[in-house]
């Protein structure tokens, strides 16, 4: 008792120093981590032989252009590729720090930021929609599966859950696209019909109008099925496992003995505890929302960040690729911090111990 009393001392105020110190410490490590990360990212991007110029020249030649040596030298200088990589790196980082200037995309011939920004709304929309689908469907189904463990429903859900994981997205996507062509006569490719795109081009529609267009949602079903099921299955499985653990806990029995209803037991006691791993998953979520998916997006022709990053990497459009990766890294670090904070908010034990839990 004595021990516990002294231990209880610093916890008098729930939001006193340990938590604040924890956040403060984490924020302090933020900067060196970002620097190391940016360096690693830059090195990785520079790892393949060649640079953007070779892509550019290869592209010109593919189009039947003739490129003179003088032109190559000129381009090299113009792109700043004649300098050693570390000079390029320091220039890049320096400009980011001092000027918030992330450099130019060679491929788009524009500053990096607008190139990223133009696909950002749809990326976020698609990611959020597919993710929300995963959580909104996965959590209840996971709970159902746990509460009715070993029932037929549990088996069916388990099977569907694993099936969703087992189906390679790129093949699933093309099967669905081909299916829409066979069934409706029109292949559902991308998120927009020609009418929507023309209306957007003419300014008659804004992207937020698009979001409420029925055709958009009809087309959205494929990404939801392809990308959403991935998240759904993961959520379903981890929710089921956690719920089973929680349902087996004594406090559930205690609550039941108090006369608390089953529904209340589930949502008050189990759900909150079982959300922990889901919340831990939040750490990667921000970055995922920013990037969207890559392979599925390529197959489904979704103009979102993932394919843009992939193309940039392939073309060695290094400032574009670097910036996207940097933002993703930043979001992961930030996401981890946020998820630790949310975890602490969810779970008083973590809150008071003031350290991240796993």
């Amino acid at each position, binding site marked *: 008792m004595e021990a516990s009393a002294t231990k209880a001392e610093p916890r008098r105020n729930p939001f006193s120093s340990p938590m604040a110190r924890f956040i403060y410490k984490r924020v302090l*490590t933020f900067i060196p*981590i970002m620097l*190391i*990360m940016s360096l*690693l*990212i830059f090195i*990785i*991007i520079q*790892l*393949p*032989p060649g640079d953007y110029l070779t892509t550019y020249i290869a592209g010109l030649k593919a189009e039947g252009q003739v490129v003179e040596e003088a032109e190559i030298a000129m381009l090299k200088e113009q792109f700043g590729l004649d300098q050693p990589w570390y000079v390029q790196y320091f220039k890049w980082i320096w400009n980011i720090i001092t000027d918030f200037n992330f450099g130019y995309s060679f491929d788009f011939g524009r500053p990096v930021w607008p190139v990223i920004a133009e696909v950002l709304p749809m990326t976020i929309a698609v990611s959020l929609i597919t993710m929300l689908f995963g959580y909104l469907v996965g959590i209840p189904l996971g709970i159902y599966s746990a509460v009715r463990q070993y029932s037929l429903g549990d*088996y069916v859900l*388990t*099977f569907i859950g*694993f*099936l969703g*994981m*087992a*189906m*390679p*997205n*790129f*093949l699933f996507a*093309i*099967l669905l696209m*081909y299916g829409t062509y066979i069934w409706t006569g029109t292949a559902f490719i991308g998120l927009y019909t020609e009418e929507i795109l023309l209306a957007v081009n003419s300014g008659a529609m804004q992207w937020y109008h698009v979001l409420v267009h029925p055709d958009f949602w009809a087309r959205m079903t494929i990404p939801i099925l392809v990308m959403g099921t991935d998240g759904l299955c993961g959520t379903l499985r981890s929710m089921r*496992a956690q719920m089973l653990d929680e349902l*087996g806990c004594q406090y559930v029995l205690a609550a039941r003995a108090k006369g608390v209803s089953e529904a209340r037991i589930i949502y008050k006691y189990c759900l909150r505890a079982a959300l922990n791993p889901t919340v831990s998953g939040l*750490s*990667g979520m921000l*970055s995922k929302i920013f*990037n969207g998916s*890559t*392979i599925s997006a390529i*197959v489904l022709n979704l103009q979102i960040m993932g394919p843009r*990053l*992939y193309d940039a*990497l*392939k073309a060695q459009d290094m400032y574009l*690729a670097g910036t996207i*990766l940097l933002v*993703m*890294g*930043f979001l*992961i*670090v930030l996401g*981890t911090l946020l998820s630790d904070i949310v975890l602490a908010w969810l779970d008083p034990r973590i809150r008071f111990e003031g350290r991240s*839990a*796993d």
Partner: protein
Amino acid sequence: MTMQEKKALRAQQRAEKQRKKEESYYLASQWTLMARKLGRHHLARVSLVILAILYLSALFADFIAPSNLTAYNSKAQSLPPTQIHLFHEGEFIGPFVYESAWETKKMSVKEMQAAKKAAQEAGIPFSTKQIVTDTTTPHKLRLFVEGPAYKWLGLIESNIHLFGTESGVGVYLYGTDTMGRDLFSRLLLGSQVSLTIPFAGTAISFVLGILLGSISGYFGGKIDNVIQRVIEVLNSLPSLPLWMALSAAIPPNIPPVQMYLMITVILSLIGWTGLARVVRGKFMSLKNEDFVVAARLAGVSDMKIILKHLVPGFMSYLIVSLTMGIPGMIIGETSMSFLGLGIQAPATSWGVLLKEAQSVTNIAQNPWCLIPLIYVVIAVLAFNFLGDGMRDAADPYK
């Protein structure tokens, strides 16, 4: 010895046996208990059988497969699965096949387009190709026939294959690909890569994850802090650019399978972070348990405590996540093949086959090329169900 004595002895032995059996129930180790529980998990049991079949057929792929990876055949392009017949001209003659081929008429695109137009105007259904089956000669199926030579496991040279026809007429259980090769053979031979490399990758991640996670969790303090920051940095490096960079940076003379293995290994070197975090968490909660403290006071070395006392405590959890980690790598392999970063033909993996199937033309014209998908799904499902069963079995509360 009298009969009675013998009888008594036998009875005694029986009793002893019975006693031992009972004892074994009570004294069963965690592992046997787990195995026993696993045996009762129906899906896990079925999965185990399926995986055993898959791995065995991968092991004996050269023998089971009637063909090999370079048996290009310009006369058997994209043939549907061969039908196995039993009755020839109304007479039962045992399993046999007929020889089939596409009707050979060389037409230019222009001519075919004209033919289609003519057919459409006449209201006749049109198809560019027609399969011709020679139903006059049956080719009987035989066991242990001679076929392409192979070196089993790189050791034993042979040319005996499990089944085939004596005449050499192809038996294409799953049809053929666009280069006229037997899909069934490619599928089996591909499973040698697809089912083994994920093991290597997961295993490396595993060792590193456990080691660094346990060090981090056991010692805490500065070491923990450093490892945690390293994890944070590694976590924020997405794997796609790494794959792309590595596959571009690896010198050209390295064969594709080896290259793939190398990249898997390199990625595993940074893929341990997730597990390390879990292990660390477990260690943090276990390290102050009485038995650990006691061992430490007794002067047992740290490494020994970690390996002998702590790791076994959540080994079951580790085994489960190992089982669950492999399917992810199988799927990952197919994704890498999709991006052209995986194994390249003629070396084959399931990813290569799926990548080949991933075309509208194949889906519409040669749907049998989707059969590898069924294998991937089944293998992944089996690993997952096995993992699921193991989790249930490892759970001491149920």
